[in-house]
């Protein structure tokens, strides 16, 4: 198939436009995961470590938010960032930052919910020891996060997978602008609409390969780390 060959050629020749798309996809997804981690990890930790009325309801809601429809999030962020919206003056619509924000919103519940589970399991083990060592709330949370870091990698990977594979939100808030906000997924959507299915599939294979590579890297880090930390 000619399309297959061209997609493969694009990859092999490290076509600059394709590389730009790949880097943008990676950058946006990683930044979204980074942002979501900063927000989601403390939320997960707080839910894991504290008991308050309505906590169970919070956990149910958080778990449900893992399934947030990307298009809805995209639309909400679009309306928020649009020049006619409340944050319009930031001028972020149709920029990679808008894509990062939308994806971070999608990924935050995933990281928070998975982190809560992981941290709560460890917290059950650590609670008495940390209390006996007179470790305060901040110390408790940071110790749990640090000691669970290799298990938390799984939560981050789940978030990264969601971000990298997502198209509905980024195409709305990014606009799929050539050379500026075009990611792997929006490029695939575009090539599909142009009827260039082989190229779309070729790009899809590249995307899958990248996701697999990131996972393999994280897995390796996790295994090595666990060997030393126990």
């Amino acid at each position: 198939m000619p399309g297959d060959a061209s997609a493969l050629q694009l990859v092999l020749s490290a076509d600059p436009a394709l590389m730009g798309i790949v880097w943008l996809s990676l950058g946006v997804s990683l930044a979204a995961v980074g942002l979501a981690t900063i927000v989601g990890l403390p939320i997960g930790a707080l839910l894991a470590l504290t008991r308050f009325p309505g906590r169970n309801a919070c956990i149910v809601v958080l778990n449900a938010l893992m399934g947030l429809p990307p298009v809805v999030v995209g639309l909400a962020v679009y309306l928020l960032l649009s020049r006619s919206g409340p944050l319009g003056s930031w001028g972020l619509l149709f920029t990679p930052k808008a894509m990062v924000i939308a994806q971070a919103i999608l990924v935050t519940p995933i990281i928070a919910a998975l982190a809560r589970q992981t941290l709560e399991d460890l917290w059950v083990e650590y609670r008495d020891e940390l209390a006996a060592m007179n470790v305060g709330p901040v110390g408790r949370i940071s110790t749990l996060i640090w000691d669970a870091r290799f298990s938390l990698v799984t939560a981050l990977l789940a978030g990264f997978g969601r971000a990298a594979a997502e198209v509905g939100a980024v195409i709305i808030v990014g606009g799929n602008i050539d050379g500026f906000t075009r990611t792997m997924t929006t490029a695939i959507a575009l090539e599909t609409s142009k009827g260039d299915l082989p190229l779309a599939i070729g790009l899809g294979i590249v995307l899958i390969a990248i996701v697999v590579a990131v996972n393999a890297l994280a897995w390796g880090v996790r295994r090595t780390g666990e060997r030393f930390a126990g």
Partner: protein
Amino acid sequence: MHTRRTLIALAALAAFATATPALAQEKSIVVSSTTSTQDSGLFGHILPMFKAKTGIDVKVVSQGTGQALDTGRRGDADVVFVHAKSQEEKFVADGFGVKRSPVMYNDFVLIGPKNDPAGAKGKDIVAGLKAIKDKSAPFISRGDRSGTHSAELALWKTAGIDIAKDKGAWYKEIGQGMGAALNTASASNSYVLTDRGTWLSFKNRGDLDIVVEGDNKLFNQYGVILVSPEKHKHVKKEFGQAFIDWLISAEGQKAITDYKINGQQLFFANATAPGA
């Protein structure tokens, strides 16, 4: 504590990844346009020339005509470049745009299976659509309120068919863009109305071919409008106006005329044609 270092690293990563693209953003405008101009490759051909001359980056967001105008109305684009004359005139009349300038036209073509079950080939568009309806031959409509969709609805009306009432199982509205409509038609051997540019650059044709073309009623005029800087203060009016001026200048018009796919001209520059 290690954890703090990790968090700082994550924050730095987030900041870096979001900050870098902003550097390249300086001299640029956002143009909301239709899928047809984008998918046909026209922008890929003309924008580098404009950039070389002016240094202005044109960022194209391609949407359906209705959505593209709405993007302009919300102030999320500096320039709109669409093909729906009456809607464009209303956009300007409502104060959202400064002035509409005609740029070019392309034409629609009726696509259908090579064996032409409705027998529409060789007819004009009115007779062709009637034949499809009479034979209940499968037809894919975009159904997304895009410029092409509006044009299609207008053509049914011209053919004396009230499609809202007369549509049957043979008439499918998919609510998606031109590419998706062509993919669907290709997969189900249906008739479909498309702009010529998208058709020429469309690769997944299957058993489809052009059935009706060249009818005057199939001509499709494009206009370009600067979003009103009075309505939206941040509109980059110098850069936007420069783009519009270039499009309707002799140089821009020639660039449009020169764009060809497989030797076929796609767009016909007509900025100076009266009443366009």
